[in-house]
């Protein structure tokens, strides 16, 4: 196959090559344009936006909007800026991703390497949770949070996201470990390693790629979640998505578009970062795997 692609690459002339790049460039532009506009306008004073063209570059470059969005902008009724909510999100997303990933890995390990009667049925039931729409669980979940005294707290949100995340993370790890050689586990068992040591020393070191996939998936989902945040959080535990909504909907006077744009970028930045950083490890993980196999 590689020979065929090389062949094609050789035969493709300069003209068609240029055409391909042009096309790719256009698609990239189409994709980046909205983001570009957001960035440009977040760097303008408000007067330039309301008085002029959204598409033009700023005449005065300023970080004022970014500063005020971060620390002084009106969110709901309080002029706190996005900062506390950003940290709320971090405090929620990091433990939620970590816990759901570790639990998913453990589940996958048990479901494939420590099989027991009824394990397939159990797995099927866990998969079910991937298909249940968020709206259906809102009321039962509120009741559970109320009963456990976790309503309105970051811990409560972590619990909700972990519960929702386990289905997917278990699916990922179960399928990954299903093809992981059972003989390795047996060898480690004979070598005297116990349940957790086999997990940490034998399975985990080979789980890089799937862990990264799982983290990217969970991080994006939990960070971007609005519904659970809006439903279950208090003022002091609201995640950034809810804060962004409140920022944009604040009804005091003029719409500060530059501040809204900056707020939206703040809210999107961490997921972007995760893709850029972890995506590279993901590819690297795949590569080392293919060389090894």
């Amino acid at each position: 196959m590689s020979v065929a692609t090389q062949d094609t690459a050789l035969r493709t002339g300069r003209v068609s090559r240029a055409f391909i790049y042009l096309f790719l460039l256009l698609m990239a532009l189409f994709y980046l344009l909205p983001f570009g506009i957001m960035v440009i306008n977040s760097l303008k004073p408000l007067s330039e936006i309301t008085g002029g063209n959204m598409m033009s570059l700023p005449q005065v470059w300023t970080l004022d909007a970014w500063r005020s969005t971060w620390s002084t902008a009106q969110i709901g009724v309080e002029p706190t800026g996005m900062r506390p909510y950003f940290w709320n999100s971090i405090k929620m997303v990091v433990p939620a991703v970590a816990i759901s990933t570790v639990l998913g890995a453990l589940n996958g390990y048990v479901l494939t390497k420590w099989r027991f009667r009824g394990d397939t049925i159990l797995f099927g039931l866990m998969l079910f949770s991937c298909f249940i729409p968020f709206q259906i669980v809102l009321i039962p979940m509120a009741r559970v949070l109320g009963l456990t005294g976790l309503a309105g707290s970051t811990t409560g949100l972590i619990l909700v996201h972990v519960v929702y995340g386990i289905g997917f993370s278990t699916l990922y790890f179960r399928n990954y470990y299903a093809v992981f050689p059972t003989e390795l586990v047996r060898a480690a068992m004979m070598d005297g390693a116990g349940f957790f040591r086999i997990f940490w020393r034998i399975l985990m070191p080979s789980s890089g790629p799937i862990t990264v996939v799982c983290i990217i998936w969970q991080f994006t989902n939990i960070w971007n979640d609005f519904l659970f945040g809006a439903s279950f959080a208090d003022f002091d535990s609201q995640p950034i998505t809810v804060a962004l909504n409140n920022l944009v909907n604040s009804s005091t006077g003029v719409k500060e578009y530059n501040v809204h744009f900056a707020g939206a970028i703040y809210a999107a930045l961490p997921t972007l970062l995760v893709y850029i950083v972890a995506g590279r490890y993901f590819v690297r993980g795949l590569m080392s795997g293919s060389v090894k196999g």
Partner: protein
Amino acid sequence: MSFLKIDNVTKRYGAVEVLHRVDIDVQQGEFLVLVGPSGCGKSTLLNMIAGLEEISSGTIAIKDKPMNGVHPSQRNIAMVFQSYALYPNMTVGKNITFGLEMHGVPKAERDAKLGKVADMLQITPLLDRKPGQLSGGQRQRVAMGRALVRDPDVFLFDEPLSNLDAKLRVDMRTEIKKLHQRLGTTIVYVTHDQIEAMTLSTRIAVMNGGYIQQLGTPREIYDTPNNIFVAAFMGSPSMNLLDAVIRLDGDDAAVEIADGDGAPVTLPLPIPAARLQGRDGTKVVLGIRPEAITDPDGADKSANTVVALKNVIDVTEPAGSDTFVTTTMAGKDVIGRMRADAHVHAGDNADLAINMDKAVIFDPKTEDRIV
């Protein structure tokens, strides 16, 4: 006292019984090979010895201590897996010492043992590599090193050579045999390759369908197979099995078969007629190994009963060291083994010598050996 005692062991998966009341006593220092066709339960039995599969009923004891329910790591056994099962994320050195580390052996002692084993297996230059950077034969050595370093009571091997190419397989076979001779450890070895079984073992257990068909030394298994299954399974090319009729005449016993033209030929048996009393005229299956059918000059000089006869050769297959010939007797293809420079050609009506000392006779109904 036996070193490893497998006593009345049965394995069931749900309602299906895959091993039926297996009894094997293994003495210290023995090299026992479990051999049989795919799915006969060899790996299952080995895994039960290892503690990786539960024993449904019966007991397995090592050094008189029952092992039922004892965790694999507490049995003082080591196993070499078919896929080698080397930990991909650890270096060769780590792979070998992982078991020692898990058993709490101090680092200095681990390193000393590693050095010794690596020397013995000649893998010292590989210790810092990852398994992915090794050839098949090197991986095989590392897998053996991992077992050796533990200094176990019993070694278990599950088809350790089946992933190697033919030449390497022969080399490693010799190495395993040398290792056994040098260390004198007790080994249970699973294979479905009957040549491996013959060359390596001190005793062989031939299995089929969850039953032990025969347990004995390679010679016993080869020369006096218990039944038609064992006779046909062991040996390559496999034993010729021909329809025959018993003829008793006074003290003399013989079998009668049809030659290539359908004419009856009588082959005398080197046993007194008393051993076959009451079977005169009954149908039997005559088993003759290819090497007992030779050209007259190649016949075993020390054999007592050699029958000379002429038969038409259908095919010759020179194999370098020998020439295999195919001829027809009793309506079946019969394979003989001649010297490499015997002058036979397809279509010849050639002189054959049949060494009846080595012939065995089976009951066609029970398939068990009569003589």
